[in-house]
């Protein structure tokens, strides 16, 4: 979503993005002329007249689970967004029984918060796991 019209979205997709991604952008490119939606989400910069790089993960109930906002010159890390999405999906599938510790990646161990874990995280999770 950006402040560009859907007509400009079409030109950008058809003339440039379709050369980077086969078949073009696979998801809807949304237009927020005037920045009303961006303002409600806290990412519209009225001085520059554009949206900043905000990314929101919204669950099936319409609840915000996480967000990240960057200033324009720095791009996002899509893999990190996907990792967070997978983590939130795992937690939801477990109905909150499992939690993903720092550095969690799909396939790695989760934690089961509860009275038995109090003071025992050091046995279940090592600091190196945050970094690899």
């Amino acid at each position, binding site marked *: 979503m950006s402040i560009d019209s859907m007509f400009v979205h079409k030109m950008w997709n058809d003339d440039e993005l379709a050369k980077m991604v086969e078949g073009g952008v696979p998801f809807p*490119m949304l237009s927020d002329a005037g920045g009303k939606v961006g303002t409600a989400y806290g990412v519209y910069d009225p001085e520059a007249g554009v949206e900043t790089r905000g990314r929101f993960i*919204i669950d099936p109930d319409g609840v915000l689970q996480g967000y990240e906002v960057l200033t324009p010159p720095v791009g996002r890390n899509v893999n990190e967004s996907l990792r967070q999405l997978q983590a939130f999906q795992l937690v939801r599938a477990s109905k909150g029984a499992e939690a993903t510790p720092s550095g969690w990646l799909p396939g790695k161990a989760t934690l089961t918060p509860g009275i038995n874990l109090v003071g025992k995280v050091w046995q279940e999770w090592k600091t190196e796991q945050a970094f690899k």
Partner: protein
Amino acid sequence: MTTEGNAGCARPTGGLVGEETEGSPEQKDSQEPRETRKMLMVGQKVPDFTAPAYHNNEFTTVKLSDYLGKWVVLCFYPGDFTFV
């Protein structure tokens, strides 16, 4: 999920769902200070909106609440043809 839009000469806009339209009498007072900008809170529902969109070589209108039951990643960016 989406409704087909017609590509007329007017530049279509969307907006928040359930929000009063701009220029309603209650909002006329220009002396009123602008609402402080605030960030959304994680764990809370996000504001619903509709927005004109381009998808699969068609112009459509997307309503966020039509995606209830699915995970959504919503991304904002400064502008088309920007570089990053």
